[in-house]
């Protein structure tokens, strides 16, 4: 038996538990309750004002969250990866540690903290909580790229006459884009699709797209729920293809 055959069990597993379920999302999205083909689930979404506005809000929050995470996270990752500025290996552990702790727990704790401080739950607290939940997911991939980056690129740029400031903008930032890209992937779509977190952080005032999907599935409206999920899948597909096709980014990863 060839060793490449050892991948067969997992290939079968992936086909059943990853590929087939995604196909089923599409199948259910294009069926009505009786199993007949229909486009009504799709058209319903585009006439569903509630769903559309939730979708718009979700995208808006996700964009804001992603931008804030980059603005706060990039400098942090840069400092963490810089030996002169940060010599301790423990600090990076402290930054990734929250990734390992139940997000619901952390969210509830944040919400309670707001309650006690007397801060009204709303969009502000939602954004704060989202940044709080997702910041480590932005810092870690950027840190990883920066820490592995060959220092000779920076030295070569200096050697060719670039000041430290120019080295940062012309070399470090472009070469660290793969990290930013995967950070964005790990922050943007999950923000759009979270449920529970937005409920707790806004006292049910703001719904995100994930909540609508969950509500429909829970109310046994599987087909419409599947259509909403399918809609998100399409967006994920587009964004990953976009970031995956970025050839420069791939080159810098190696």
């Amino acid at each position, binding site marked *: 038996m060839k*060793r*490449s*055959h*050892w*991948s067969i*069990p*997992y290939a079968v*597993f992936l086909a059943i*538990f*990853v590929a087939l*379920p*995604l196909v*089923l*999302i599409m199948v*259910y999205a294009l069926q009505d309750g009786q199993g007949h083909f229909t486009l009504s689930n799709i058209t319903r979404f585009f006439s569903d004002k509630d769903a559309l506005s939730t979708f718009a809000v979700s995208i808006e929050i996700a964009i804001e969250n992603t931008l804030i995470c980059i603005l*706060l996270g990039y*400098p*942090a990752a840069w*400092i963490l990866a810089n030996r*002169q*500025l*940060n010599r301790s*290996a*423990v*600090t*990076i*552990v*402290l*930054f990734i*540690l*929250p990734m*390992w*702790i*139940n*997000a*619901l*727990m952390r969210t509830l*704790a*944040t919400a*309670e*903290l707001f309650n*006690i401080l007397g801060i009204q739950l709303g969009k502000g607290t939602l954004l704060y909580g989202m940044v*709080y939940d997702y*910041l*480590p997911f932005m810092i870690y991939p950027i840190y990883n790229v920066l820490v592995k980056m060959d220092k000779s690129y920076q030295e070569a740029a200096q050697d060719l006459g670039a000041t430290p400031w120019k080295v940062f903008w012309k070399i470090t930032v472009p070469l660290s884009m793969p990290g930013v890209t995967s950070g964005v*992937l790990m922050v943007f*779509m*999950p923000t759009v*699709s979270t*449920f*529970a977190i937005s409920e707790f952080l806004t006292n049910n005032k703001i719904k995100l797209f*994930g909540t609508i999907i*969950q509500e429909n*599935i829970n109310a046994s409206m*599987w087909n419409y*729920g599947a259509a909403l*999920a399918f809609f*998100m*899948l399409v967006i*994920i597909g587009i964004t990953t293809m976009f970031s995956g096709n970025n050839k420069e980014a791939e080159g810098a990863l190696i």
Partner: protein
Amino acid sequence: MKRVFAQIYLWILLILLYAPLVFIAIFSFTESKVLGNWAGFSTKLYENLFTGRMQGSASLISAVENTLLIALVSAAVSMALGTIAAIGIHNLTGRKRRALTFLNNIPMINPDVITGVSLFLLFIFLHFSQGYVTVILSHISFGTPYVVLSVLPKLQQMNPNIYEAALDLGATPAQALRKVLVPQLRPGMISGFILAFTMSLDDFAVTFFTRGTIGLETLSTYIYADARKGGLTPELRPLMTLIFLIILVLLLVINLRQSRLQKAHE
């Protein structure tokens, strides 16, 4: 000077990240029912947690047990499946390899809700009654990719001839796997296991969609239900504090050991 500013920036972020966790830890040492009300120092909540005498729901302990059981079983299966798969993928080339890597990446890129909904539809479609088995299968599906990705680099570092050398010296493929490959891959397998384990512990959405209606609760779904009822069970505070401390110690130990190993190599 630059260093001082940098450190201040890092510490401000860290304080913001840890404030809620510290806040919970502090209030795990008081008896009050409502978070934020200090009713004097007490270790009563810890006693309740360990003796199982809950003020509220008694199912917290069983939720913890379910969580651990599901995480252990699914991470162990993920480790075995993922290691064998990684060896297979490592020996694949071209289109087949790209296809498998692509499929392997999907569970990691997909938001939890999508994974949850898609698996929910799968079990509906297959008329598979949902419960422990479906939750564990689902957790295997998103845990295994992490094992594959942790083991693959170890395979790349490994001398490609050692497996052949074992066969050449008379080992059967199974013996070569057990006696030569696995010892070489062990570090990758262990970190893959830890990743799969914590992903499972952490999961809420996938469990939520695939647990069916038999009343199966994990810690996440328990907290969710609890919070929706209004007001968390007070015993959750010591539990969260303990989990936090265990993970903190684990991560620090792993990391310090790694950096010491690296230094020794240099």
